[in-house]
């Protein structure tokens, strides 16, 4: 039944109005029941679930001027190419990014509802001493950091490289786009001779 908001008009007879009223009340009942508990039932007015339609231009939605509004919606991500659950608050917009990285990549990333971005992965370096690594060398679905707050590294033992038992790794520094580590021998002072592998975890926004 179509919903007619502009009824009844001043010159409408009751016969015409009656059908439009009936149609409107039936359509309201159907409309509300899509995502809400229906009229006349226990819990009426509550949500059953939230369905976010993906053909809406959520990009143009702006929270209220006094920054006391938080908005959830669906937005076509320029990064993943998929529609992603998105949260907007104050002057911030964060795609929750429900798309994970493909399994053949060596890093993953998680955007939390708070906006905090966590990225973690595994890196292999071929030389000891100072090494510079770039976040997101794999460009697919890469969500860039604005700021990185902390970075942690842990050495990994590679069974096919026995010398890797003698490695230590530490963080030198990091930016939003890259980080530097120092690879040394574990049992002696100085740069490690050869390749090594390590796990890393970065927290930022």
């Amino acid at each position, binding site marked *: 039944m179509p919903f007619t908001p502009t009824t009844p008009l001043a010159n409408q007879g009751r016969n015409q109005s009656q059908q439009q009223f009936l149609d409107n009340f039936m359509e309201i009942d159907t409309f509300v029941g899509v995502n809400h508990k229906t009229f006349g039932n226990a819990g009426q007015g509550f949500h059953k679930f939230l369905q976010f339609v993906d053909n809406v231009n959520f990009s143009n939605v702006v929270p209220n001027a006094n920054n006391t509004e938080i908005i959830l919606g669906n937005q076509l991500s320029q990064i993943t190419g998929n529609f992603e659950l998105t949260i907007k608050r104050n002057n911030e917009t964060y795609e929750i990014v429900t798309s994970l990285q493909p399994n053949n990549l060596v890093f993953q990333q998680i955007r939390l509802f708070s906006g905090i971005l966590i990225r973690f992965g595994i890196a292999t370096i071929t030389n000891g001493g100072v090494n510079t690594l770039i976040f997101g060398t794999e460009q697919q679905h890469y969500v860039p950091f604005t700021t990185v*707050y902390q970075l942690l590294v842990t050495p990994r033992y590679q069974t096919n490289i026995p010398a890797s038992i003698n490695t230590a790794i530490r*963080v030198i520094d990091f930016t939003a786009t890259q980080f530097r580590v*120092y690879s040394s021998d574990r049992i002696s002072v100085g740069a490690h001779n050869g390749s090594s592998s390590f796990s890393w975890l970065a927290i930022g926004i």
Partner: protein
Amino acid sequence: MPYNPNIPQPNDTFAKSQKDILNNFISIYDSFRVDHIEFNFINGGMHAKASFNEQSTTPLFAGNMFALYAIEPTLPLPETGRTELVLHNQMGLTFTQTLITGRQAAATGWTLMPSGILIKWGVATITGLNAITFPVSNAIPVFTNVYNAQVCIVDSATTDINRNVIVSSLTTTDLNVFVTTRTTTGAATADVSYFVIGV
């Protein structure tokens, strides 16, 4: 158009009711299209977005349910000073609240997840066996339980500073670590980066 739920009254003329009813239908139409796909459109009734205006006080619910709402948190929630989205889990007469958008975005910071998992991170200068005490304020949630801690040495030197860090113990208020030289067992001083997971 203002919505009037008290029409028509028994003694209202049709001329008066006509305008009241018209205004009500227009109000229904305009109100629902704020966050929903409109009447007469495909997917009408579904959400285009969900907008949460800040609640002035914590809503009261009955029964068992989850609810989402926006509020500026007050104690016992961390007083972040911002409007936050809260996941409210009502279980009979008791409830829990989780600030799913809560965070301190800084070099020493924290964030909460909808599951209630709390993550804290930071950096501290430590000598030998010593405690990293998690910052405390009304704006920072306190761990009720801690599960895991990760640490590493961080230093801007481009030579080997010969340092190592080991986790000694973990409590809800402190992370105890032992900083030594790497090649001997002697105590030393270094900056330690940490990452702790709990609730």
